[in-house]
């Protein structure tokens, strides 16, 4: 794939490569700078592996002060910076460029404080999403946003992309669960935004930092909200003969004022992929599957389920399978959360992330199938149906350039379909490099100019993750 351009590397930076490396070596402890050409190769991409660019060097600081020192240096000498958490971005958010220093937060992985009385955890940015929940689960708490990559992805990356997850239907996405950050600005200034107190004292800068894809600064610490774990949770499987029926059922459940904690959708190809990996006991003789999770006391779950089953009945549900044990529930989620990776067993894929209004689900599912068929490709659909956040996985052969180009073109058409249906390009993965050139389909020039002006307020020289999010043409002069 090579449709998407990166910024031309700055010759002034490339020509100073050796000096820059030498200077950064001085700024960082031993073992915290990767600069040997061969060692840089593994950093050339993230989970959007279709695009690759070698970085100039990779800094792996251990403290906020070191992050600040590197940023200050890069600011002074006009060196672009690409922040990186665990490198799990599906949108290429962490893909570097030849003249950029990657700042990886993977060494900053300590949980700094857990405060149960105030229901907060303060962690370094390199802590994985799941590690937060793991650290507090024995005390009956969890951190709610749960991207499928939660095992590996970092909270810093989650903040960068404003990540969602299956359980966001009830609990909201990262921005709704983030209370404060320590942010290092491009000039090395360290600021604290938010904290254990709710709301903001001045402008809500935290709100715009969350989801800014590393373009406003680098988050090194975060304070997040913890939630008391519900008494019980039960995923139930609903199998349908058609995707349209399943989609319509989702809209009716929400329309009836029932908000389960999660409603996940899988079509037949996705079911087969996930079952092969997790052996979760998904029904195999249906075309579409909903995983609906309810939580609360037994009585509450029973009551909510009864209503959902009744609605599903109106949409011709074929199989209703209640899970019988915690192990079974865990397997159901393991299968779902591994869906993308497990797809790797059968093909390469790119994963779309458009969100559409619930009522548009059947229409967009149909349209997706048509687009993919037109390009002679296959698709597996697995997504967060409750909030209309679709994830068509377009399957292709990465070793066949034509196939890859078709996949990319099909993906672009699907995303435009989502926008045209009243939705957006990305619900939780971020724009990154992947969707950058589609931004004008969703926003007008004026809309984009306003966003870019805010971005420039934090980083006037456009040094932070500069190839991402905003189309390369029409940017304000730095």
């Amino acid at each position, binding site marked *: 794939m090579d449709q998407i351009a990166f910024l031309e590397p700055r010759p002034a930076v490339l020509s100073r490569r050796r000096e820059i490396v030498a200077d950064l070596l001085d700024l960082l402890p031993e073992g915290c700078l990767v600069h040997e050409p061969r060692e840089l190769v593994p950093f050339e991409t993230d989970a959007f592996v279709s695009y690759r660019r070698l970085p100039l060097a990779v800094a792996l600081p251990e403290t906020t002060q070191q992050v600040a020192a590197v940023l200050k240096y890069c600011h002074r000498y006009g060196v672009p910076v690409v922040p990186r958490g665990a490198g799990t971005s599906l949108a290429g958010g962490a893909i570097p460029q030849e003249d950029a220093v990657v700042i990886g937060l993977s060494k900053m992985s300590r949980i700094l404080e857990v405060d*149960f*009385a*105030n*229901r907060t955890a303060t962690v370094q940015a390199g802590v994985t999403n799941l590690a937060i929940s793991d650290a507090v689960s024995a005390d*009956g708490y969890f951190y709610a946003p749960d991207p499928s990559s939660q095992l590996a992805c970092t909270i810093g990356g989650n903040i960068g992309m*404003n990540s969602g997850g299956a359980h966001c239907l009830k609990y*909201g996405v990262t921005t*709704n669960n983030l209370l404060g950050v320590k942010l290092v600005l491009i000039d090395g*200034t360290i*600021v*604290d935004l938010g*904290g*254990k*107190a*709710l*709301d*903001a*004292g*001045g*402008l*809500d800068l935290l*709100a*715009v930092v969350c*989801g800014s894809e590393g373009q406003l600064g680098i988050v090194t610490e975060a304070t997040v909200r913890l939630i*008391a*774990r*519900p008494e019980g949770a039960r995923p139930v499987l609903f199998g349908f003969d058609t995707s349209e029926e399943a989609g319509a059922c989702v809209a*009716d459940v929400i*329309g009836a*004022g029932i908000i389960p904690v999660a409603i996940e959708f899988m079509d037949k190809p996705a079911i087969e992929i996930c079952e092969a990996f997790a052996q979760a006991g998904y029904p195999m003789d249906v075309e579409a599957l909903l995983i609906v999770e309810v939580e609360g*006391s037994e*009585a*509450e779950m029973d*009551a909510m389920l009864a209503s959902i089953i009744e609605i599903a009945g109106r949409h011709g549900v074929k199989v209703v399978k209640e899970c019988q044990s915690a192990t079974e529930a865990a397997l159901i989620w393991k299968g779902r959360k591994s869906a993308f990776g497990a797809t790797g067993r059968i093909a390469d894929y790119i994963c779309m992330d458009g969100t559409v*209004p619930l*009522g548009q689900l059947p229409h967009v599912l149909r349209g997706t199938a048509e687009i993919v068929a037109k390009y002679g490709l296959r698709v597996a659909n697995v997504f*967060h149906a409750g*909030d*209309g*956040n679709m994830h068509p996985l377009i399957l292709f052969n990465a070793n066949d350039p034509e196939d890859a180009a078709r996949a990319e073109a099909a993906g672009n058409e699907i995303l435009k379909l989502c926008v045209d249906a*009243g*939705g*957006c390009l*990305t*619900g939780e993965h971020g*724009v990154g490099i992947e969707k950058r050139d589609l*931004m004008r389909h*969703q*926003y*007008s020039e*004026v809309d*984009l*100019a*306003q*966003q870019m*002006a805010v*971005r420039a*307020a*934090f980083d006037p020289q456009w040094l932070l993750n500069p190839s991402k999010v*905003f189309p390369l043409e029409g940017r304000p002069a730095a």
Partner: protein
Amino acid sequence: MTPIHEPLSEEAAARLVMIAGLSATPFSISGGGTRSLLPATDGAEQLSTRGLNGIVAYNPAEMTMTVRAGTPLEKVEAALAENRQMLAFEPVDLRGVLGSSGIPTIGGVFATNASGPRRFVAGAARDSLLGVRFVNGKGEIVKAGGRVMKNVTGLDLAKLLAGSHGSLALLTEVTFRVLPMPETAVTIVVSNLNDAEATAAMATAMALPVEVSGAAHLPESVRGRFVGGALPDGAATVLRLEGLAASVSVRAQKLADAMAGFGTVSQCDAGLTQRLWREIRDATPYADGTSRPLWRVSVAPTAGQQLVAALRLEAGVDAFYDWQGGLVWLRMESDPEAALLRRYIKAVGGGHATLLRARPDVLAATEIFQPQTDAVTAIQTAVKASFDPAGLFRSRMTG
């Protein structure tokens, strides 16, 4: 008398701002004028959204609504109520405490991020806000966000505008998420706890899997001024539960059992619960017709009572707590004591205080919003300039 502009369309508003830019005429943006923290001085002209009125789209099945910014809040709430839906964040109505008249608008709600008791579990106004249309200081019509629940396409300008108090742009249209109304609600009352005990009790309640949706502590001094004195004698620590009737009663029992160790437990029915939480939301005890300084202070939940305890030693204060203790409604006897208050906020771990009410001269002389560090102020200034380079929109928030 400063002129008041009430454009009747987004285009008209944009034109107005563009033209004003030519003559560098500053504006003070308002909705219904019920939350104004200070009348415009310095020659700013009033720019009101009142002419931008009406519900643009409401899709109950998708739980989203799009409304012009000047639409009265009560109209929005009435439309939602017809479908048994609501704004999750319970917008606070400040008319009582500010003694203001007028009709609160939905734009004003979002521009001030006005959130009530459910905020500490369900999020603030900004968390419900999905998308906005606005006129920036260059007179451009801009849209940000959208109408779907999950959207990370570009910068989240909608949330940045929430709570910006008219300092960045004129909101013209808002799209927000709504929630089903709970079938019923009850309140568990734990009586006679001191502030510290109440803080511990509320933290314990929040740790239980019973989904408390309101946690407030009403010290003895204010308790009698709520719901016509209908709460039991002594301080009242009140915990709200909402949802399906069957579920609420089970949870209420569980919560009551857990609270029995803290103090005497009683329960309010749905009717009294509704009234009580509305009064907590609007700080009704301080709707006293005076201009005694009133602060809204946000700190970590356990820090609220520490802050008040410290202040009591040095100033005459009256206070009650919402948000599990993290929101302190603080009424001062005479002087706002801003410096003292802010010093103690820092001492208890940080947070912020907004001065909502005081004598006009005191208001004018006090920093009503929490002062920020130099670095943050610098970003705020740059952000302000990115929306409003000529500084047309005057607000106490960004100067």
